[in-house]
């Protein structure tokens, strides 16, 4: 392996920060969701590079479970989003503030 593991983990860090920026900067709930997916994927990349680094399969298994949880999260999240859109006609996360104290 000519590419050092630090390069993979650094790339995953960059992608994670990009996803966090998306969550902080964008107001459309759909894009916030996609940024969360970006962060989950970057964490998966870190897990896989750690698995490769230690030649231990457990990291890949954890990435597998992250994948499953991400799939369920997207299904439930998008269903909630569609419901919100039905009742409020917007997917702007600043507009949906019924629970604001």
């Amino acid at each position, binding site marked *: *392996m*000519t*590419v*050092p*593991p*630090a*390069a*993979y*983990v*650094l*790339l995953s*860090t*960059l992608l*994670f*920060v*990009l*996803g*966090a*920026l*998306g969550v*902080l*900067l964008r*107001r459309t709930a*759909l*894009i916030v969701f*996609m*940024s969360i997916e*970006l962060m989950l*994927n970057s964490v*998966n990349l870190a897990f*896989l590079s750690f*698995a*490769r680094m*230690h*030649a231990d*399969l*457990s990291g*890949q*298994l954890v*990435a*597998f*479970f992250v*994948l*499953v*949880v*991400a*799939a*369920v999260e*997207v*299904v*439930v999240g*998008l*269903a*909630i*989003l*569609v*419901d919100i859109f039905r009742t409020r*006609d917007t*997917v*702007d996360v600043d507009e949906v503030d019924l629970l604001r104290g």
Partner: protein
Amino acid sequence: MESAVFLIASALSLVGGVGVVTARQPIHSALSLLVVLASLAVLYLLLLAEFLAVLQVILYAGAILVLFLFVIMLLHAHSPELHPSPKLGRSHTATAVISATLLFGLLAGAVLQALGGRVVAPPPPGFGSPEAVGRALFTAFLLPFELAGLLLLVGIVTGVVLGKAPERREAGRPEEGRPAREEVLTRGGRR
């Protein structure tokens, strides 16, 4: 060879990531996300995670992204002028960028300190193959695996319940000016 593939795939994933965050239209974000997912699948192959790479393509690019596109089209069909994300205040943007930069500095410092000059253990034969992953899933990770199945079931039921069209208050009595579902169906059939 490996470095070249790594450089190309990582550059593509970063470009896609910037696209996800900066695109004005949600649909462009979704397509950028597809670029990220595909290039990450290539990186997974470089990391000898064949099974996860295939899953990434099937599950993420195949299922999750299609769901995203479907919802985007559904919402846009209802509101053609889904306002392309209103401008945020300058202080908000600055705060977000500064905190993200600080987070990156923190993480990158920790990574370089912990992993700088790390050598990689040689993998055993068959590392990351479907057989090896499946064997681990059904032995050491059996309980989480079953729980994941349960979680998927919960996800399916939730999706069906939440995605159902809202029921009308009085069943059987159509509202004024709005034909009941059966009426629409029979009219469509007669046409």
